Structure formats: structure tokens, C-alpha cells
């Protein structure tokens, strides 16, 4: 029972569990990010190859995340000095500066709160978990990747675009949608609306699948 509680994962739509943690940029609380979107992501370990490529990829797109009012926050069970040394090493060897803080979660307090330890993968390292948290602190999207598979940062950006577009325009986004493409009009919930839907000027395959362009911003 205790271990079930230990690895309880927060669910989409939940308020993201708050914490205070030591990071490579000082002590931070999750609530410090309120007002901004946040991509919080864990990695298995500093000075490891896949994680290094991921950090470089996140850093290279940091400006794109900023444009979306989105901050980045890394996490692993390594210490703050290890994070600092790794970040400095990445910059020295590749010229890529890591601009975002990294949580030093040695006691796994945050990792346990967010279900970042998957014992089937590793009992000691955090897997590649990604949490997108909105400006109100609500958990909006979770991605889990195994230790061997690096994440696709463009997909994470695409998810933020999709969530922000859905919020702003009250629409949904289809498979493989990218910003600027047509969006899905929410399907009608009664027969009268369903019959009217086909006359509303949308691009429809049928009453339940209609798309529209959004006005250019």
C-alpha cells in the first residue's frame, strides 16, 4: 500500500503538486512558475549521452518556449554541483548554454510526487518524464519515454501550441496538427445542432468532423 502511494502519478487536469527544491539556479517552488506555462522534465543522469543531446535540444529551442510564455525546468537525482559541472561542460564542449534550472532531487521527493521513478526501467534513476503545466498550475499533458529514447522537442512545442490554441479558441486539434493548420470544431451534442452543423460553412467530412481555419494572429 505504501509503495502504491509512493509512486502515485498525478493525472491530467489535476493541480500539479507543489514542491520546494534545490536547483542549479537556487531554491525554487513549483508555485514560483505561476503565470507562465512550464515544461518540467526529468532525465536519468548528468554526464550521460542521451540526456546531453536532450539538454542541448531544449536549450536550442529555449527561445521558442519563451515565445509561448513557457519556462523549462529539468530534474534528476544528481546533486546541484553535478548539474552545474555538467552544464558548464556542455557549454565548454559544444558552445550551447543551458539557460534553465535543473532540480537536484537526491532524495527523490519531487520524482516520487510526479511518478518519475519506474522501477521496471530503473529503481534509482528518473525516466524521461515530461509534464506540461499551464499558467494556472494545472497539469495538462504527460509524456513518458524510456531511458534509451531521447525526446522530440518539436513534439513538445507542438503540444504546447495545441493546448494553447485549444484554450484560446475552444477547438480541438487533429492528428499531426501544426500551428497554422485547420482546427477541429467541437462536435455537436444534440441532433438539431448536428443537422445545422453541415450548413455552418465549415469544411466537413460529416457532422461530427468539421474543420475551420483560425484567423491569423
Amino acid at each position, binding site marked *: 500500500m505504501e509503495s502504491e502511494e509512493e509512486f502515485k502519478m498525478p493525472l491530467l487536469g489535476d493541480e500539479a503538486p507543489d514542491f520546494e527544491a534545490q536547483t542549479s539556479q537556487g*531554491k525554487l517552488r513549483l508555485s514560483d512558475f505561476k503565470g*507562465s506555462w512550464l515544461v518540467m522534465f526529468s532525465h536519468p543522469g548528468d554526464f550521460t549521452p542521451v540526456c546531453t543531446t536532450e539538454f542541448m535540444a531544449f536549450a536550442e529551442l529555449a527561445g521558442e518556449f519563451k515565445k509561448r510564455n513557457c519556462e523549462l525546468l529539468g530534474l534528476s537525482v544528481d546533486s546541484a554541483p553535478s548539474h552545474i559541472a555538467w552544464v558548464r561542460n556542455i557549454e565548454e564542449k559544444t558552445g550551447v548554454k543551458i539557460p534553465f534550472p535543473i532540480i537536484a532531487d537526491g532524495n527523490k521527493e519531487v520524482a516520487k510526487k510526479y511518478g518519475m521513478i519506474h522501477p521496471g526501467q530503473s529503481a534509482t534513476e528518473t525516466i524521461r518524464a515530461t509534464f506540461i503545466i499551464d499558467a494556472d498550475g494545472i497539469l495538462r499533458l504527460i509524456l513518458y519515454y524510456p531511458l534509451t529514447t531521447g525526446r522530440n522537442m518539436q513534439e513538445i512545442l507542438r503540444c504546447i501550441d495545441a493546448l494553447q490554441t485549444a484554450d484560446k479558441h475552444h477547438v480541438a486539434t487533429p492528428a499531426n496538427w501544426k500551428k497554422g493548420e485547420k482546427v477541429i470544431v467541437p462536435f455537436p451534442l444534440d441532433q438539431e445542432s448536428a443537422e445545422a452543423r453541415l450548413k455552418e460553412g465549415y469544411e466537413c467530412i460529416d457532422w461530427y468532423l468539421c474543420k475551420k481555419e483560425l484567423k491569423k494572429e
Partner: protein
Amino acid sequence: MPCILPDGSITETAKKVLAVAMTEKSVEEIAKGSSLPLFRVRSSIRELIDAEFIAEKNGKYLTTEKGKEKI
């Protein structure tokens, strides 16, 4: 990186926060005025309040006399 170093000196981030808060400001105004992200401003303010370099009143923040000496 903490705002206040073990030798009592403060970081550039802390100086920016204190400089903007010379007149009463909200967190958002300090973030805008210092070009720092909100999360850095909030965490810095916590430390600066503990050190009595900044004071809070009705959700606004003002650099104290002690804080002014650090800029």
C-alpha cells in the same frame, strides 16, 4: 544560484530586483523591469525578504535601507 552569497554579497540577479523595487512594485512589474522570468523574481524575493533587503506590503515589494546599501 542563491541571491545572497556566503560572504554576504549579492548576485547580479538580486541587484536587478532591488534596483527595480526602489519604488513599490508587484512581482510582475519587477519581472518586467528587470527582464527576469517570474520564477526567478519570486525565488529571489523570498531570499531578499529573509535577509531584510526587501519588504512586502499588500502584495508589493520595496527595497529597504539595508537593501539599498547592497546595490
